[in-house]
């Protein structure tokens, strides 16, 4: 199971990294979503992978599932969900405004700093 989880995190991270290195907003946003999935699974597994163990430490129990990473993951999911929504809105606004969804600085030197693009 460790191998499966670890390779899933690895594949997600690799795909996410590749996509975030693209120059258009859509693949980059997809890449960041993949990265956040990867980090969520990673956080989840940082409390060790246990099966069928109670999440609370009680008497007469040797192994228990660590509940803290699950709380952390919940927070991380909520935050990344909200952030992704924000970045989609801003990227849409930028795309509709300048009819261009590249995320690098515009090459035209005139356009930077003057408040208008092309």
């Amino acid at each position: 199971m460790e191998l499966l989880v670890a390779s899933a995190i690895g594949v997600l991270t690799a795909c996410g990294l590749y996509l975030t290195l693209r120059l258009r907003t859509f693949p980059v946003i997809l890449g960041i979503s993949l990265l956040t999935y990867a980090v969520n699974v990673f956080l989840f597994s940082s409390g060790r992978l246990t099966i069928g163990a109670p999440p609370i430490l009680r008497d007469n129990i040797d192994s228990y599932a660590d509940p803290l990473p699950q709380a952390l993951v919940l927070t991380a999911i909520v935050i990344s969900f909200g952030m992704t929504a924000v970045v989609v809105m801003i990227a849409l606004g930028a795309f509709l405004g300048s009819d261009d969804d590249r995320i690098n600085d515009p090459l035209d030197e005139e356009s930077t700093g003057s408040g208008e693009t092309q």
Partner: protein
Amino acid sequence: MIHWIVAPVILPALLAPFIVLAARYHIGIQRVFSVAGVLALIGIALGLALQASDGTITLYQLGDWAAPFGIVLVADRLSTLMVLLTAVLSLFVLLYAIGSEWDNRGRHFHALFQFQIMGIMGAFLTGDLFNLFVFFEVLLIASYGLMIHAGGNARLRAGVQYVLFNLIGSTLFLFALGAIYAEAGTLNMADLAQRVTLIGAEATAGIRIAAVLLLLVFAIKAAVLPLHFWLPSSYAEAPAPVAALFAIMTKVGAYAIIRVYTMVFGPDLAVTEGLHTTWLLPAALASLAIGMLGILAARHLDRLVAFAVIGSMGMVMVAISLFTPTSIIAALYYMVHSTLAAAALFLITDLVRAGRADLRLTAQPVIAGAVPTSALFFAAAIAMAGLPPLSGFLGKLLVLDAAFESTSAAWIWGTVLISSLIAVVGFSRAGSTLFWKAKATEGAEDAEPATPPAMLSYVAVGGLIALIAAHTVFAGPATRYMTAISDQLFDPEPYIATVLETPGKLSEPTEGY
């Protein structure tokens, strides 16, 4: 009295929704509440700083749950100083935003501003790494809104870059936190400080990776080369008061580095040995050089100021990366100076915009209100370039003095001195183009005379310059206080003891389980 420590977080957190819900369409009411809130914050921050000034470490257990299980807020000398700096800075920024009508060019400026302050204050006060992440996100999500305040295509495009870069940074932060939790089983900084020392020498791979990842995250926030690419565009395109407020955001990264790498991964810890000298110091020197070169190379005034921010952050990071008590004193002194100077420069950039078509460094007809604006620019440029008599010079002297004992002293002295020269040339070129050559340029005959900026704008910028002057005049008491901060940082035992040994709700096992 103990509850005051949570007030810098709670007050803006309550004020912001109130402004959105109750005063949505009344800019006057929004302004009154926003300024009143910031004034109250300054009062609270002063109280907290006074409380911490004798070395008391105040602990606040949220919900009375004891650390390391509960979330704690901790106020020591360093965090209260940063809280005070934030509160004072935000007052002047807010006054400028009101004076220049920036707050009325889009909606929800004041609410987002309060949320931004809440995030920054929380990041300075928290004693828990995951809580630090949450407050980073609070300040970031507010900054996304502020960054694209008043809209415009160029601003939105810069906003996309800024948001995407910071999202990657947040993901990296989560990876670092996961790695730390997997290795140490805690995210409370004080608890972590104890557990990291217990990790055996043969099993340090995970914690080493975690320490480097965490350093990368904070370096992104502090805009250290080569992780500075988000800064020039976003700071240049952000509305001027927002960019001025962002001057404290790079310092959040520097603060986090100081906090984590003095307490958790201390300078003497074998696990992270060499991290600062081998990696951070060259990166800091490079960002100092690139920042100052950028001042000379910039073709727009707003980009010039953004590069000045990178350069001054480089200076702060050079001092931090030496990680000796004297260098931390220098870093703290320079950090306060650099926050004020960068904020003043961003506001002056906006003053220059009055009556100019754009901010290109070309000779254009005289701007409205040229006399006070050029005087303020002169003072702020002197401060930022580090010329005497203002505090930039003293800060630089402190950094050079702290570097004297270091093995890489030649590199540090060389870079600091040469880059200062470049900065002086860059600022004087910009200033003479903007203000002197303008005299020789004829404007169009039928051009309407532009209205000069409002008095309140000048008051706000003048106030920041006055603070820089005060920081210079009272450099003696200031450095004495920084020495006290540094002493406290390099002796983390009382901090750790306060956090871990204060009993909470469930510290004593109760019957009935």
